[in-house]
């Protein structure tokens, strides 16, 4: 599903963020990406979301060569993935319901579809009672569940979670990862960037470690449909 072939990324200021980076992630996998800050994790995600282009090398996601995507194709490419942010990225003056519905409306779904789908997804993350609350009335864990619901709402084939537990207390962190695990069990590929080793240890999934822009350890694909 995701393939990095000898990817180099050097920023304009000379920072070498990724060096000869190659990686293959199959459909339906759950992958932890670990590494200290500045190791190149963020660059990896930026390249995946096609916010940045590699300096050289090729990235292929679900059959699409990202380097050939045009600006106007980007929205449609991004609709195939759901993104969960460390800082939640909820819109403060919108209710929980509207924050999730926003992601549907933005891609032009009808109000009817929104009314049907949002309560269902809020139910999945256990937040139906909080639908009318505003983000500031929720705990960090609850806010991240809203973020998760928003990432899930358009049925993406891939979930990218960028340190989703970074601003959540430990007990809630476990719950969040458990939810991602459950989402993965239903067939969605999950990519989670984290530096919390305790969490990584608890869930026995594939672990990829990056250091100084290079892949230093890979526990190997756990599901390989192409094998």
């Amino acid at each position, binding site marked *: 599903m995701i393939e990095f072939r000898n990817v180099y990324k050097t920023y304009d200021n000379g920072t070498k963020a990724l060096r000869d980076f190659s990686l293959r992630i199959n459909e339906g996998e759950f992958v932890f990406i670990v590494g200290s800050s500045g190791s190149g994790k*963020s660059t990896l*995600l*930026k390249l995946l*979301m*096609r*916010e*940045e282009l590699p300096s050289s090398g090729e990235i292929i996601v679900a059959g699409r060569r990202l380097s050939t995507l045009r*600006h*106007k194709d*980007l*929205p*449609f*490419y*991004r*609709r195939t993935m*759901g*993104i969960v*942010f*460390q*800082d939640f*990225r909820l*819109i403060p*003056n919108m209710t929980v319901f509207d924050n999730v519905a*926003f*992601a549907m*409306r*933005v*891609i*032009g779904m*009808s*109000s*009817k579809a929104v009314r049907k789908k949002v309560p269902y997804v809020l139910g999945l993350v256990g937040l139906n009672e909080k639908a009318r609350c505003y983000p500031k009335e929720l705990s960090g864990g609850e806010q991240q569940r809203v973020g998760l619901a*928003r990432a899930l709402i*358009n049925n993406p084939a891939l979930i990218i979670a*960028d340190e989703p537990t970074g601003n959540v207390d430990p007990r809630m962190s476990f719950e969040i990862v458990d939810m991602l695990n459950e989402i993965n069990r239903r067939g969605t590929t999950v990519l989670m960037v984290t530096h919390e080793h305790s969490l990584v240890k608890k869930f026995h999934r594939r672990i990829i470690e990056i250091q100084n822009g290079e892949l230093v350890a890979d526990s190997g694909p756990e599901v390989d449909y192409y094998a």
Partner: protein
Amino acid sequence: MLSSTKYLIREGFRNLWTNRLMSFASMGVLICCLLLMGSAALVSVNISSAMGWLGDQNAVMVFLGDDVTAELSDSVKTQIEAVGNIKTIEFVSREDAFASIMSKLSDDASMVDALSDTAEFLPNAYKVTFDDLSRFEVTVDQIKQIEKIQHVSDKRDFVKRLNGINKVVSVVGLWIVGMLFVVSLFIITNTIKLTMYVRKLEIGIMKSVGATDWFIRLPFLVEGIIIGLFSGIVSFGLVTYVYLTASSAVTSTFTIGIVPYSSFWWIVLLGFLFTGMFAGSSGSLISIRKYLKNDGGISND
């Protein structure tokens, strides 16, 4: 599609309300600029109308030779008309001219007596006005070429000065209006940019879930258009009030009339609405351009 449109328009109004302080500031700025622009335009319109009026007063008298008979004078008239640029041409017989002079002199009895009651010493004449005063000299010279014309009363200097003032007024007026438009666009763009900064988060989320550029742009566009329309309506109301008040005051004081509002109020209204909408929507589009141009803006930097 319909539900998206409805959603986008609602979103535009919601943004307007959420950022009401900024919306209010934008409207204030736009109203000020529209008022200045409208006033400049109205003053310019009135000055050029007054110029036109003065120009009409400045008729040229074409005096015919003594030997010109009634038939001949008709042929002279056709020749004058053939020159072109003639607005009106009116025959003033020596009797009419004499009566007009007598009435002006009626206070001075001795003069009236001295002139007795003969008009024979006065020539017949045509009173001619021109369409385009800037071609005054050329036209007068051409008329002078016509046979049987004795003399053309020629007030070149006055006309020259009039033309000069008219040109300056319209050029300066245009410059003022143009500059004010650029200034208002600049201020609106910056005001909307400030709200845009606050909404960077929203735009980033929209991008991350795959909103197209137009979907991101439209609520801002709706917002700009509403700001523009509202400012246009308020400016129209204010200008109408001031113009009507001022024109009644001016008309009761001076003889020179102000251009009646009823003849062009709809141009003022349309002008305000279009300029407001244009400024508002271009302001929005310019300020959001930066956020849409690059592919990033999703994750934190």
